[in-house]
């Protein structure tokens, strides 16, 4: 991953996402049950999968951080969670729009898929207050890693629990016999790869910005000759605080209504 330049991966992201959305709108057939509104599927589901996988990636980086003590893994874990929370906002918003159009409601509290995703999202939303409530940088990184591992383990468990639960109205697309028709599956897979590339691009972009901020802080301290040992880069600066100023100050861096549960599989509209 490190050998491919950010520019290359960004161009690939735009190309694959454009191809995926193109396939979704112009190649994949309309769903016989839901009609045109099912096109949200090609955006909503890849966003959700990438957000959840991102939380697991953050947990893996957190394990590596606790094992090695290298702050780069803490920074990667932080950025992975940050991007996955942003993707999570996208999942909740696009899901609410789809629910309104398809089921006539913005939200359904009795549906385990929706509520469980909200729980995971809110769980990760507490990562920031937890992290920045601790001033000591090493302790902050360690506690954040422990949180990322615990919450990361909760993600697959939560997914499994939702799969085992009885669905109310939310589709269980990939568990249905037969799954998606080939054209829909192709469009979906291209969108999924595109969304994965977008996640990787944004993670690398943010990590690059954080590394630059940390390097600037080190240079400033060296130029001002305050004698403080150089901070390892990249590190995580507090939200809303200039990394350079923070570091130079010696502070811590930072239903369809009534639809039957069986009506969950997407199928081609008969022409």
């Amino acid at each position, binding site marked *: 991953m490190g050998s491919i330049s950010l520019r290359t991966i960004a161009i690939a992201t735009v190309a694959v996402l454009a191809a995926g*959305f193109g396939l979704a709108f112009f190649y994949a057939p309309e769903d016989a049950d839901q*009609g*045109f*509104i099912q*096109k*949200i599927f090609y*955006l*909503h589901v890849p*966003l959700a999968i990438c957000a959840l996988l991102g939380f697991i990636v953050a947990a893996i980086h957190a394990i590596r951080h606790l094992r090695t003590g290298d702050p780069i893994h803490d920074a990667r874990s932080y950025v992975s969670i940050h991007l996955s929370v*942003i993707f999570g*906002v*996208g999942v909740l*918003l*696009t899901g609410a*729009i*789809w629910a*309104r*159009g398809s089921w006539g409601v913005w939200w359904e509290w009795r549906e385990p898929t929706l509520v469980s995703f909200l729980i995971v999202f809110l769980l990760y939303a507490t990562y920031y207050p937890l992290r920045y409530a601790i001033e000591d940088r090493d302790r902050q990184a360690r506690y954040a890693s422990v949180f990322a591992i615990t919450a990361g383990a909760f993600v697959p468990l939560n997914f499994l629990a939702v799969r085992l639960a009885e669905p109310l109205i939310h589709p269980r697309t990939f568990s249905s016999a037969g799954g998606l028709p080939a054209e829909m599956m192709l469009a979906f897979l291209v969108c999924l790869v595109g969304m994965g590339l977008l996640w990787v691009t*944004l993670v690398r*972009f*943010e990590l690059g*910005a954080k590394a*630059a*901020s940390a390097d*600037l802080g080190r*240079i*400033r301290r060296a*130029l*001002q000759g305050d004698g403080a040992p150089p901070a390892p880069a990249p590190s995580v600066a507090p939200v809303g605080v*200039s*990394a*350079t*100023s923070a570091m130079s100050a010696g502070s811590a861096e930072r239903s369809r209504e009534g639809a039957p549960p069986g009506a969950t599989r997407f199928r081609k509209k008969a022409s």
Partner: protein
Amino acid sequence: MPPLLLAIEDAEGYVGGAYLVFLLLLLVYVAIMAAKLQRIQRDLGELAELAEQPRRSEEVSGR
């Protein structure tokens, strides 16, 4: 019902709305990151000035 909601009371409107929300989210993120990069650029300029100060003072004292 507000006119905006009336306008999106069809499948095309909902699909367009969902993709627009995604685009807006992406744009907001990119705008925030652009602001951060501008700050880094400004800090870099300050540091360049700081780095040049000793040389300038040496030049002044040399005269």
